[in-house]
């Protein structure tokens, strides 16, 4: 791995100006859709194929009865144990050298398996192209040593990107500085995410934020047990064929399908 990066989102500095939301659309050339005001500043109401990052607005009543307006920049967490990659049948989703999760759009077949698998409900389906879409941490920018568009646009320093260890250290220092319920979110599950939050409130206070995100068990069984086992089986079959070739000479047209079983599983 070239250089594992982490994007740090310090929500204690976020003013919900939504510069990041627009910068993301601008850099990634994502169109706007006509929306309605549904009684909230949050718009569009959720992540969608043309909205890869979104500020969530949440009115939270504190213990003393006073309101606390919470802002959370939502988007792909870029997991190390990425359920989307595990479940993707075509290899469209993959880890980059930065640890982020990127996508070969041409390989996506629109099966939506990643949508079901993602513990953060991030990938979104575009029916027009029959493909999913999500944040790729501005992979093309990272490749030329530029920060993601959202980070570049952030006026307050709520968004930063840097070497994984340094960012995590920074996150803990900031949470300690803030005190109270402030905590770091992202480094302790799915083998660590490449987006890490400093949350001023406990994780369970935030809407749409899983407290203990996991790669679904069936994905682990599929990707980490069954699929390797299947590949192993396939490999054994190939080896068997080769041995058969060595011992029995070239196959005849009648034997056409015998070597492909493993790959079709």
């Amino acid at each position, binding site marked *: 791995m070239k250089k594992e990066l982490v994007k740090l989102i310090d929500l204690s500095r976020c003013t919900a100006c*939504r510069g990041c939301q627009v910068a993301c659309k601008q850099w990634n050339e994502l169109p706007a859709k006509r*929306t309605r005001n549904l009684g909230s500043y949050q718009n569009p109401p959720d992540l969608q194929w043309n909205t890869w990052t979104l500020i969530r607005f949440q*009115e939270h009543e504190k213990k003393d009865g006073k309101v606390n307006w919470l802002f959370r920049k939502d988007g792909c967490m870029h997991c190390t144990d990425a359920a989307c990659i595990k479940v993707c049948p075509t290899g469209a989703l993959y880890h980059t050298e930065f640890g982020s999760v990127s996508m070969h759009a041409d390989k996506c077949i629109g099966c939506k398996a990643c949508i079901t698998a993602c513990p953060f409900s991030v990938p979104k389906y575009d029916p027009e192209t029959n493909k999913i879409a999500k944040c790729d941490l501005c992979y093309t920018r990272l490749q030329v040593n530029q920060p993601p568009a959202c980070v570049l646009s952030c006026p307050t320093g709520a968004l930063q990107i840097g070497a994984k260890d340094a960012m995590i250290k920074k996150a803990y220092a900031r949470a300690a500085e803030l005190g109270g319920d402030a905590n770091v979110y992202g480094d302790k599950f799915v083998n660590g995410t490449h987006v890490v939050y400093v949350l001023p409130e406990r994780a369970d206070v935030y809407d749409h934020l899983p407290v203990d995100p996991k790669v679904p068990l069936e994905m682990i069984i599929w990707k980490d047990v069954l699929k390797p086992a299947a590949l192993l089986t396939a490999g054994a079959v190939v080896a068997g064929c080769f041995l058969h070739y060595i011992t029995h000479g070239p196959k005849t047209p009648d034997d056409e399908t015998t070597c492909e079983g493993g790959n079709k599983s």
Partner: protein
Amino acid sequence: MTNHYIDLKNSDCILIMGSNAAENHPIAFKWILRAKDRGAKIIHVDPRYTRTSARCDYHVPLRSGTDIAFLGGMIKHIIDNNMIQEEYVKYYTNASQIVNPDFSFKDGLFSGYNAEKRSYKKDTWTTMKDEAGIPIRDYTLQDPHCVYQMLKKHYDRYTLDMVSSITGVSKEDLLLVYNEYGATGAKDKAGTECYALGWTHHTVGSQNIRAMSIIQLLLGNMGVCGGGINALRGEPNVQGSTDHAILYNILPGYLKMPSGPVDTLAKYIEKYTPKSTDPQSVNWYQNYPKYTVSFLKAIWGDKATAENEFGYSWLPKLDDGKHYSILHTYDAMYAGKIKGFFAYGSNVAVSSPNSTKVRRSLEKLKWMVNVNIFDNETASFWKAPGVDSNAIDTEVFLLPAAASMEKEGSQSNSGRLVQWRYKAANPPGDAWADGDITMKLMDTLRELYKKEGGAFPEQILNLKWDYRDASGKFDALKVSKQINGHYTQDVTIIDPVTGAKEENKKGETVPTFAKLMADGSTSSGNWVMAGSFDQKGLNKMAKRGKEDPTGLGLYPEWAFAWPLNRRIIYNRASCDLEGKPYNPNMKLLEWVGDKWVGDVPDGPAPPMANKEKGKMPFIMKVDGVGAIFGPGMVEGPFPEHYEPLEGPLAKNLMSGQSLNPAVTPFKSDLDKVANADSKYPFVCTTYSATEHWCSGFTRWQPWLLEMMPEAYLEIGEKLAKSLGIKNGETIKVASIRGELKCVAMVTKRLVPFQIDGKTVHEVGMPFNYGWRFPEDATDASANYLTPSIGCPNTFCPEYKAFMVNVSKA
């Protein structure tokens, strides 16, 4: 701003009141967060809990239009608890001066009031002087007629109970803010105030700011790092437009607009040049004649001569006592007295108050020109929903303009920092830069005048008008140099002490306003900008040095700040009488040996302890000190709480005067008022959202529209519940002047107030919307609701406090 954006980081306590800084100044807000990182307390006092409140240590809700009551209570608290910076108050303010014994205040009125004219004669609003003309002072601050004691007496009525009852702020919250902010009275602490349209948009707008100025002087917070009174200007160049005389009553550089009776240059100079015999007062405005004549030379060039009073008679004159604000303009237009109208870079049908009156006024015009980057509700007022186009004769011209990034020029930010900006792209299609439009218009007018003549030909034909570049386009650099000023002839100056000779050549740019003269040998279109070029013509506004020698964020080599690259004005007040900084950790200035070291000082004179040559720090004031007693205002030398034109109370709890006594309401049939009217029971305020720009040309930007797609009214949960209104449903909002339909945004962020023992609800909506775009938009401009009335000092409209009803649609 008396200070500058970066300096916000140096503050120990930031009071954001009258501003929604995080939403309307999102980039600048980072400096506030830097202060917070240093341990500063950030306080937001605002009717609504906003994105700003979310990042502050405290949000304290107060009823719209009651800021003076809140601040008056703070003045009382500071005095009662002796939280003042005593040395500063004694020597750097007029607290020690003795007020005219005939000055009085009773039941909301100061002495000299004329009820019929709704204005004051100010002859008793004075302080006493000795035979030599020097102010009489009592440095013990004990004389019952000294400003300090008068101030104490005036605000004695602003008790916690009274203030709480008017503002709806709990006594606990009042004490919390008063104590936090009052603590900045310590010599080594600084508190700053960030305000914006939340303070100016009231019938007491200017006095809101005056009240805070008094607090800042009491606490020794003016002229210091992390202090000051800081107006966060609402668009990138609004400071520039103010400096260059956007208002009808000033000329560029805040020179006064002459009125009819002041019909000679001599009279004008006599009237506006202040005189002081106090040897310790710099009285900088004694240079007023130099700035006036240099301005006239810039306007009329060689045509301005001593013989013709430098063309003074060609300047337009205001009718004495008459006002020409936008409010007065629409009133006259509605009365059919105005034929033509330039709505230049504006969308007045959405942005001006009382939209019905504005739109009906436009119908009375013969012609209107709108210069804009998109069509808007103003240019298309004649085809608005419900308007009978056939009944309107107004001929409308919509000229496509270049956007800000499509032209070169200077841009002044709130901190008086004037930065040169280059053109990024050519304007599309037929769009022109404003400068080119103006040049073309004036060229055509001049041709017509030459051919056909016309009224006041001297003004048009004598104008110095050579601002084109080689290709015939408007040349922003030429105009900027003209604003800076030139030597109009060879000038040799011989130093009276050293005998050194200084040769200045005709045509060279003037390097500082200290070189401007009243004899016609210099020109300057705006004296505060003199020094934006050096004598060789180097454009200092384009400088991009990143050095910060003081470590205080002054960045003196980055662009140019007026005046004279001074980053914090009145900076000599940051030091004691000996010239030592009050806060040794923030050495903005220090008197070392025989000179000031640090920021560009407010003049080279030694500090006040030097009885022979020392000067007082407030050099722009005639008496050299900060004005706690401020007779310059039209409604009184001490700010007093008056109710908005429309409020929930039938009677002002402070006095028998409900509305600001110096305000004269308009009388047209569309200027209806509903004060304390049960049909309109809710306080309403208006504002702009982060995602949109003022009257909303950003609605044409799909990404921004997607985030904030349509008009909404923010309404508290309790009120919504009592009205049976659900979040997201369409509702009707009505004032006595107009009504509209929009989306209800039911929120926990608006809470009811307890006012005079009764529950009062406040609602609010953004003014960014109109029918013209997007295509499916409704005619939901918030200014249908607002009244045509404003502060009598500036006529800034009262957009921030009026009464409405809300119901299910």
